[in-house]
């Protein structure tokens, strides 16, 4: 069939909406259709913030219609799913039967293919490691040929966290996690400042934990926030509230400095001084923002950036310095997250390292880029890493210095995709496929 039966030209953006691309997109609805397409990078739900799923002037394969459960073993909990399946859907249908996706990132819209390609982490990283560490088989389509790969070989390690550069992830087998039920017991505590936050994160024994940080707080309050710890459980909770949608771009003042400061102050005091324990539907704990569809429109038509880095445990003062710089800038949004990370990674280009990770959203105003560049330099100096699923602005040489296995990975990617058809805007911008 002529290629114009599959492709249509479309303009699309990363989740942060600051970067966009125009190019041809195909959206296969059957595995057979996927194998008839010429090689092109895959896209899931476009939840990467920057340009990881963009291919300006080139082609993209939209995997959203290949989203089926194609096998499940009730005894072992091994799930076989197509690459476009969304983790939130999997959590919704399997939690009542006692199984959860082993790792869930901050949005349930993330797809299995995206979760593997970014080797995503979740609120249980310090115990469970990354998503890729629970994948027991991947079916890749390389130039129309499906091949199955398993942990242990170098192509597998280049595919997990491999930014889609070794082929299209058609399906995967995942070891699901036994869960006690489909609700979360969540303990929320106010944390008055930075040092307390680190020691509480270190002391936390909870299966799931995450810290919300008031990135506008300064002085004695610097680093204050709320620590949330969760365990799965069984019981009755009210059904999740229906989702709402942001209908249009918000005006600029919506996230101006005084508004954010006031919001954060109230949000901090929402949790009583003595803390509290609440029972929530699992999706409200794991995917708090998903209830607000298109929440990225809150940042207006210019969009926003998310800065996320991880630094080794002994470099935590660098994060404190970053927070201080952010607080002074007046650019922070209400969204700022601090988490402890364990050592687990699933691939050569995986983001996590043992230490602490900080993620902060910034509206894409002119002043945001210099601040983010400064934070990037501080990350590099602290021997840390920038998360490529979030990145839109980093320097190629900085990123290459942060990922020690990049050259080995680039060689695997070159074997899998010799003519470079799978390169995305992120890969080109950071020259990640450079050999040597």
């Amino acid at each position: 069939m002529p290629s114009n039966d599959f492709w249509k030209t479309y303009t699309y953006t990363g989740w942060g909406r600051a970067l966009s691309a125009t190019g041809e997109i195909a959206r296969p609805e059957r595995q057979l259709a996927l194998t008839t397409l010429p090689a092109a990078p895959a896209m899931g739900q476009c939840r990467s913030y920057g340009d990881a799923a963009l291919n300006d002037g080139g082609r993209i394969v939209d995997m959203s219609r290949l989203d089926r459960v194609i096998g499940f073993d009730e005894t072992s909990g091994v799930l076989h799913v197509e690459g476009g399946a969304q983790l939130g859907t999997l959590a919704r249908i399997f939690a009542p039967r006692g199984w959860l996706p082993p790792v869930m990132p901050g949005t349930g819209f993330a797809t299995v293919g995206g979760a593997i390609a970014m080797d995503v982490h979740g609120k249980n990283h310090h115990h469970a490691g990354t998503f890729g560490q629970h994948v027991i088989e991947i079916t890749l389509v390389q130039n129309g040929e499906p091949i199955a790969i398993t942990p242990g070989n170098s192509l597998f390690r280049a595919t997990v966290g491999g930014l889609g550069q070794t082929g299209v992830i058609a399906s995967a087998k995942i070891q699901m996690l036994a869960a006690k039920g489909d609700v979360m017991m969540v303990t929320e505590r106010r944390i008055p400042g930075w040092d307390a936050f680190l020691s509480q994160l270190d002391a936390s024994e909870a299966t799931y934990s995450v810290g919300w940080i008031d990135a506008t707080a300064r002085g004695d309050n610097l680093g204050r926030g709320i620590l949330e710890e969760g365990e799965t459980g069984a019981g009755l909770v009210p059904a999740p509230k229906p989702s709402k949608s942001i209908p249009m771009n918000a005006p600029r003042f919506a996230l101006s400095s005084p508004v954010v400061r006031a919001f954060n102050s109230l949000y901090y005091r929402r949790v009583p001084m003595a803390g509290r324990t609440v029972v929530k539907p699992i999706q409200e704990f794991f995917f708090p923002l998903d209830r607000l569809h298109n929440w990225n429109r809150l940042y207006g038509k210019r969009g926003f950036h998310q800065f996320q880095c991880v630094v080794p445990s002994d470099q935590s003062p660098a994060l404190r310095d970053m927070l201080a710089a952010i607080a002074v800038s007046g650019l922070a949004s209400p969204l700022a997250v601090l988490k402890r990370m364990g050592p687990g990674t699933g691939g050569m280009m995986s983001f996590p390292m043992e230490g602490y990770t900080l993620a902060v959203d910034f509206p894409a105003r002119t002043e945001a880029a210099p601040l983010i560049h400064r934070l990037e330099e501080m990350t590099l100096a602290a021997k840390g890493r920038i998360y490529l699923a979030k990145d839109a602005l980093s320097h190629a040489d900085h990123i290459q210095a942060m990922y020690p296995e990049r050259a080995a990975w680039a060689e695997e990617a070159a074997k899998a995709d010799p003519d470079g058809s799978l390169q995305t805007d992120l890969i080109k911008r950071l020259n990640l496929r450079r050999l040597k």
Partner: protein
Amino acid sequence: MTQTWLVLGATSSMARAFIRAVAQDGHAVILAGRDLNDMESTATDARAHGAPLAQVHRFDARDPDTFPALIETMTEQDGVLNAAVFVGSMPEQSTIDADPSLIDGTITDSFTGPARVLQMLAPVLEARGSGTIVGVGSVAGDRGRIGNYVYGAAKAGFHTYLSGLRNRLTRTGGHVVTVKPGFVDTAMTWTVEGMFLVAAPQSVARDILRAVTKKKNVIYTPGFWRLIMTIIRLVPEPIFKKLSV
């Protein structure tokens, strides 16, 4: 009571959204179509979403030998039997203009093939004294237009057939819902230029199930197509024949 849905044309994205929705409601599904491998995936997915039973059967609208097995399988199921028809084919009008023999296949796929299956199923529903048939037609069947009048004619025939079948089954407690979708975001429309207000298959599936529950006779989905098509039908023929809408 147990409900079973026979889904003709189970590989289309509209059908897949519908199958998921009825699976979530806890109904059994019998999937019928040509691509058995693909339907096996959809069947597993339906079980994961809550279907107590999901079976796959070969069905080709142009091969009547594939019809009797479907009726047999349905007869074996307990409880209320339902059917939903999502089959159809829409070659470009210009392709048909170049090869008029394509008309037969288009009409078989979109009208006479599924109508024969429904005709065989009707006595089974009558005997049970219940059951719903959902027939997916098209707004294209409401008036013949230069762009796709062969497909439109097939769907118009199907609409008329469904209306007669409704007239028949209502006497024994059965019901027929005629569904007329506007533009739906499927593989068929993915590369078609000039689409507007395109509906997601999931929202079409929701509309269909609501119509089934409320025993609606004819629905447009999304609903605003009723207004658009009312206007299009009201344009006098002397004017309409000069338009290209």
